[in-house]
């Protein structure tokens, strides 16, 4: 690689194996080392605006189209926002059905990430050739038998979701004050069988993580190392006795030391969280209003906070179910204490949650009201304003609506899980780039290690810009002032090739 | 080479030529791709014009023609006939209305010519897409259906049967007779209605051409003149035709119930007939009151019936009858002003309506014709109030025209039983036309009826006193204190009858009666060809008027429904493509004529081409565009829109 001269730019466009469209721009200083790196999300759909004028009861099915990978999260947050908007308490049966559905959804979505999207970086290895770093590579690594099991457990989960919520991609069960469909004994029977196997499968996956990732020195160093570490605030939902809960509870924020910064109720989110706008990306950057936006820096006086599995662990003490709590202690002991800053730890925390989901389903379906016919509380108040918050697989998800007396949406505001992590991702990408790019030398390891910085968050760019459509594979463009940009291409067989792109990006 | 269209431009003398530059249009047409020949003519509709059209079409061998002339409502038929004469299907002739809708309404000649051009272009665009519409004929049915079994219905049935036609009478009660059977002293000659009706009722019973369907509610009248289908729901009677009405079962029956026939002033058993000699003669069991239907084991009627005619298992049936014409004779209802406080009518005081008075003075009535007050005693003084609830702001706004003669008759009926009774008639204007009328009125006055004129009947107040006497205050006159008051009330169409009008799609006039097609020329016809109207459903009528109207209605139907004569079916009908139709059934309820049925096996809907009138509402309703409205398809209409906008 020739020695690159002053004012270089590296574009990684697009980033792959995530949900949504992303691009990374890396700018080199004179010496060819990394000066700045930015994660750019180049699209917008405008859900918040075209929600206006829609009947409130249609929002759960409209907003689930913000993300096809976690439609259940938006559907549930939206449904809870409608409960608040119409000032109606869901019946106990409705709440049970919603929680069973939602735990099923998080369970299969977490598995999708570990085995299909982010996990391959680990399971197959960060510098394995690109065409192996996907589900098929994972199957080769863990064996076809396990691969079949993975596909089968996910299919069973999605079959059950079809029966409870009509369909897995874009469910239909949520209504203000309840759900649309009553449960049957057959569904409960298959849920019993399923949750038993799910608990085993979760423990089995944790064992895989232990064998393949934790027991492998290089991965452990990455896990514990500083490259993927940044010390931000953490936010997550906790139930009344402090356990992390996906469906309901208050939101707690802890600082870098793990000390509680604030716990707030969903309706007060806007006084706690603010969003910062940059001209070069369609995504907005949420931060803690009281501390303020200080740019892409971590530390106690930067309002940046993170969500997602590690965050949920950091804000809570213990898990709500026994087996998961055991695994949490193993995780905390290994990661050195309660507060964990390593980004890659998300993979592990995510698997602890998978176990928690499976156990929660077992508990919920045994409740005697689960099969009752009272699935809706019909006395709705006149709608005014309502906030609904759930923990999406990728973190705290907020829906906030106002409506007129006729129940027509007059305004909508949504803060999406991955949104909070985008700023942190940019930091991680920048630190990874700085760690691996010297003197303008570019190698394949860089590309993947940089991508790992964002993949671990299991980011959902569609959610991030709720907003955001798909994306393109990774391609690095080296911008050299004064003449043609050199494009370093990582093609499908992993070879690196260089071509000239005559399109001269303007520098005005 | 796409088949082109021959264009004819009509000067219509000066009507078009003066306002539209036909020469320019002819020049334009010659350059128009869609036109193979264009001709201009003075009067296309005149014999010479028609001759010219036919020879031109023959010589050119044209497949279709556009006539840029006057309104299709005027001469489309004329030009269609020309087409038929040269072997072209009438659907191949289309018109551009460049006279009424262009020349006559667009003073500026250039604008008129431009508009004419666009209308012609629209017609050209459309004509290329028009397909032949095969004409279909079907033999007209000559049988008849009569709805309503009163005097008018009875007369109509007998007259039609007389001409050898099969007749079905649908009657909602359990027997024919209607309002008239309840009257014993038909004004003005006090003829006895049951006596008049008895021979006609038995004539109907004996006549093989006439079928009586009693306890029937007509739910649908489908089709059109010459091709009607009448569907009715026949209530279960629980007594078979073996019953001859011998009344052996009446006495043993343990249940008494209020009699509607006697307006609640008498009772009958749960098994009953309306009156002796009813047609059909069989009795009927009232399901609400009969103990058997409340789980009780009572078998009283079965044990006492010599003909074992009781059948508790009878079910409601659907009766469907095909016919060529329908005679509607459902009569009108007595107007009972019970919600007018000034009438003092509460069913307890000695204030009666004339209908109740008739019941009390009729031998088939509850008191075997003995006029008596609530407590059974004989009244000595009676006041008869004319226009009770009529011609007043809170009642009927019109004069029914038949109640005055009854009110005057009341005196005669009373005096026949109670010679010494004092009868007052409180009246405003007396409506009692005819040579005989004045004589009859003077006769009653001499016989003792005291006429009390009052210019403001709406102010008359009737109030029961503590002692049961009735106080009648009359503006400008001395108040009366009498034993009994009879309210001479008018007639109106009840809600059920109005609902029936919507089933028939017969319009109602502002006063709520059925509206004739034309008050003078076709008073017994309705807007719907083939559906005739007779009797009080048109306007309150004396028996004589009802009979005459019935005869007129049947006469008209017979003159047009000649056996062997055919009817042309509508050609511009819609049809459903079964491959696209998903069976969503939305077209069915949108059809005004109920011409669409759902086919259970094929799981798709089909249109009955004999009933469809071609309105096209179903084509606009079909959510998957599976229905094509012949001659007004979406493609044709779109082609016209393009023509008028870009022409």
């Amino acid at each position, binding site marked *: 690689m020739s020695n690159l001269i002053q004012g270089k730019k590296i574009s990684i466009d697009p980033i792959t194996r995530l949900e949504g469209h992303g691009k990374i721009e890396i700018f080199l200083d004179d010496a060819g080392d990394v000066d700045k790196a930015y994660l750019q999300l180049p699209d917008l*759909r405008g859900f918040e605006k075209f929600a206006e004028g829609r009947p409130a009861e249609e929002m759960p099915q409209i907003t689930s189209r913000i993300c096809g*990978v976690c439609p259940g999260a938006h559907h549930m947050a939206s449904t809870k926002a409608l409960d608040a908007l119409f000032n109606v308490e869901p019946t106990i049966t409705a709440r049970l059905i919603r929680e069973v559905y939602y735990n099923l959804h998080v369970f299969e979505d977490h598995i999708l990430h570990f085995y299909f999207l982010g996990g391959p970086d680990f399971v197959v290895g960060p510098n394995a050739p690109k065409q192996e770093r*996907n589900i098929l590579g994972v199957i080769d690594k863990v064996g076809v038998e396990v691969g079949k099991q993975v596909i089968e457990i996910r299919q069973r989960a999605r079959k059950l979701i079809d029966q409870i919520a009509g369909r897995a991609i874009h469910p*239909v069960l949520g209504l203000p004050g309840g759900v649309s469909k009553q449960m049957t004994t057959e569904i409960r029977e298959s849920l019993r069988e399923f949750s038993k196997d799910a608990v085993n499968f979760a423990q089995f996956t944790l064992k895989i993580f232990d064998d393949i990732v934790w027991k492998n020195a290089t991965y452990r160093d990455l896990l514990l190392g500083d490259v993927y570490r940044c010390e931000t605030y953490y936010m997550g939902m906790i139930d009344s006795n402090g356990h992390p809960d996906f469906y309901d509870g208050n939101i707690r924020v802890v600082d870098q030391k793990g000390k509680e910064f604030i716990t707030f109720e969903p309706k007060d989110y806007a006084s706690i969280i603010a969003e910062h*706008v940059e001209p070069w990306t369609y995504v907005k950057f*949420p931060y803690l209003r009281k501390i303020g936006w200080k740019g892409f820096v971590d530390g106690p006086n930067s309002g940046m906070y993170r969500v997602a599995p590690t965050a949920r662990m950091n804000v809570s003490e213990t898990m709500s179910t026994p087996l998961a709590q055991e695994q949490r202690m193993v995780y905390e002991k290994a990661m050195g204490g309660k507060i964990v800053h390593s980004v890659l730890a998300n993979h592990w925390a995510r698997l602890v949650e998978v176990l928690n989901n499976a156990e929660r389903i077992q508990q919920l379906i045994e409740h005697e009201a689960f099969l009752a016919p009272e699935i809706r509380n019909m006395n709705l108040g006149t709608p005014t304003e309502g906030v609904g918050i759930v923990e999406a697989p990728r973190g705290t998800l907020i829906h906030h609506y106002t409506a007129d007396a006729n129940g027509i949406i007059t305004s909508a505001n949504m803060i999406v899980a991955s949104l909070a992590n985008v700023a942190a991702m940019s930091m991680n990408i920048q630190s990874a780039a700085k760690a691996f790019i010297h003197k303008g030398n570019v190698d394949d390891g860089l590309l993947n290690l940089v991508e790992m910085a964002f993949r671990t968050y299991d980011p*959902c760019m569609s959610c991030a810009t709720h907003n955001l*459509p798909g994306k393109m594979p990774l391609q690095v463009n080296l911008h050299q002032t004064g003449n043609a940009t050199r494009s370093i*291409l990582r093609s499908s067989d992993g070879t690196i090739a260089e071509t000239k792109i005559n399109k001269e990006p303007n520098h005005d | 080479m796409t088949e082109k269209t021959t264009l004819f431009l009509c000067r219509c003398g000066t009507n078009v030529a003066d306002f539209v530059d036909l020469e320019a249009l002819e020049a334009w047409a010659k350059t128009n791709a869609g036109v193979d020949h264009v001709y201009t003519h003075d009067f296309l509709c005149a014999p010479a014009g028609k001759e010219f059209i036919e020879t031109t079409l023959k010589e050119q061998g044209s497949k279709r023609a556009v006539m840029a002339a006057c309104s299709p409502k005027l001469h489309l038929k004329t030009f269609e006939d020309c087409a038929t004469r040269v072997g072209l299907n009438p659907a191949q002739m289309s018109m551009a209305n460049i006279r009424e809708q262009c020349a006559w309404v667009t003073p500026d000649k250039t604008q008129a010519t431009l508009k004419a051009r666009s209308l012609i272009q629209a017609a050209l665009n459309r004509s290329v897409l028009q397909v032949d519409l095969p004409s279909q004929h079907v033999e007209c049915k000559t049988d008849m259906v009569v709805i309503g079994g009163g005097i008018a219905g009875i007369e109509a049935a007998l007259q039609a049967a007389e001409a050898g036609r099969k007749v079905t009478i649908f009657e909602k009660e359990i027997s024919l007779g209607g309002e008239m059977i309840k009257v014993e002293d038909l004004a003005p000659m006090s003829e006895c209605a049951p006596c008049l009706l008895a021979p006609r009722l038995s004539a109907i019973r004996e006549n093989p051409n006439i079928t009586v369907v009693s306890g029937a509610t007509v739910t649908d009248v489908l089709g059109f003149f010459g091709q009607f289908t009448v569907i009715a729901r026949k209530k279960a009677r629980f007594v078979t035709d073996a019953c001859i009405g011998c009344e052996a079962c009446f006495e043993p029956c343990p249940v008494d119930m209020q009699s509607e026939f006697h307006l609640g002033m008498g009772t009958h058993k749960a098994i009953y007939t309306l009156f002796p000699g009813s047609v059909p003669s069989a009795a009927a069991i009232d399901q609400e009151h009969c103990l058997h239907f409340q789980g009780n084991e009572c078998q009283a009627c079965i044990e006492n019936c010599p003909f074992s005619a009781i059948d508790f298992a009878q079910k409601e049936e659907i009766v469907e009858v095909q016919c060529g014409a329908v005679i509607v004779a459902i009569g009108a209802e007595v107007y009972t002003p019970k919600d007018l406080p000034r009438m003092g009518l509460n069913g307890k005081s000695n204030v009666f309506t004339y209908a109740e008075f008739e019941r009390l003075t009729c031998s088939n009535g509850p008191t075997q014709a003995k006029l008596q007050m609530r407590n059974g005693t004989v009244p000595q003084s009676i006041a008869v109030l004319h226009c009770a609830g009529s011609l007043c702001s809170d009642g009927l706004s019109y004069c029914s025209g038949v109640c005055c003669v009854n009110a005057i008759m009341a005196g005669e009926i009373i005096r026949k039983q109670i010679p010494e009774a004092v009868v007052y008639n409180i009246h405003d204007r007396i409506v009692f036309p005819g040579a005989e009328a004045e004589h009859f009125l003077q006769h009653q006055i001499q016989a003792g009826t005291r006429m009390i004129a009052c210019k403001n009947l709406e102010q008359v107040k009737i109030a029961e006193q503590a002692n049961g006497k009735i106080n009648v205050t009359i503006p400008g006159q001395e108040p009366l204190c009498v034993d009994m008051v009879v309210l001479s009330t008018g007639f109106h169409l009840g809600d059920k009858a109005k609902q029936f009008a919507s089933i028939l799609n017969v319009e109602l006039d502002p006063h709520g009666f059925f509206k004739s097609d034309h008050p003078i020329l076709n008073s017994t016809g309705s807007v719907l060809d083939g559906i005739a109207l007779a009797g009080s459903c048109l306007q309150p009528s004396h028996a004589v008027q009802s009979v005459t109207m019935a005869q007129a209605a049947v006469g008209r139907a017979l003159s047009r429904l000649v056996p062997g004569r055919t009817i042309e079916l509508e050609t511009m009908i819609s049809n459903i493509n079964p491959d*696209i139709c998903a069976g969503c059934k939305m077209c069915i309820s949108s059809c005004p004529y109920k011409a669409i049925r759902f086919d259970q096996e094929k799981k798709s809907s089909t249109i009955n081409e004999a009933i469809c009138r071609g309105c096209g509402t179903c084509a606009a309703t079909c959510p998957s565009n599976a229905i094509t409205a012949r001659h007004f398809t979406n493609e044709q209409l779109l082609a016209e829109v393009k023509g008028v906008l870009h022409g």
Partner: protein
Amino acid sequence: MPKVKAAIYWCSSCGGCDESIVDLGERILAVRELVDFVFWPCAMDPKLSDVEALADGEIVVSLINGAIRTSEQEEMSKLLRRKSQLVVAFGSCACTGGIPALANLKSKASIFDRSYLHSPTNVNPDGVVPMEHSKTAEGYPMELPAFYDTVYQLDDVIDVDYYLPGCSPNGDMVFAALSAILSGKLPPKGSVLLPDVALCQSCDRNATKPETLTITEFKRLIHVQADPTQCFLNQGILCMGPATRSGCGYPCIQGNMPCTGCMGPVGSKDQGARMLSALGGVMEGESEEQIAKALDGIPDPAGTFYRYSMSSSFLGSKRKEVKP
């Protein structure tokens, strides 16, 4: 038999369509035997450069999902069109605009205003909004794709061979479509790879719909609890089934919620006009007041009748002069 080169790409979408392919379960393994995904950003790492490196027409079939909202999506679609023999508009967004096309009821300015300027949580004193060409705080030049005024469907920007509507298409539909393409037994160009009949034909509740279906008032689901056995329209609850293509197996109705029309129209391009016209045919109400009261039960006709097909109707597909 050499593997068929295929590509899957997502424009303005939510990822649900890609998820529906991942959802094929074991069948994904069978498909993998026949198909070599040369480009599937959601699940595989092959790159844009790989696509550009391919010869024109080397990709046998591209499944493109998502609507066209920005210039980049249009350019990517045109690139894939050039490189592919067959292009399938995959999912409702690509076929008829989908949920993103609801934005056609609003103006671009109002969308930017709500997203970046006036919202309860935006802190944006200098009124910064994303721009096609901008600079970072540190002065580095950055580019963003242009954000169109109107959301278009795929065949507005490129020639489309086949359509597979659905939001998102279920596994069976996807597998059937892929098998048809791989087997080469394909219907004429431009057709939809699904039956040309409305949902009512397959829906088991249709039998409960009487022939005399008449609706006196439309009931919203916030006011009524739906009977799980009865046809929704017969309960006065608006169901888009009659004007929506069959083939999805009506999962929403089995979840006891009415169909919202994601499979797009059948027999016409204008789903909204078809449903509106059909409802007009079966509604009760003679007087203006009765009709107004009945119509109040449909507070959002545009959003309901064109929930997924705004781009395929003339009214909803192009910017209008009046900015609501």
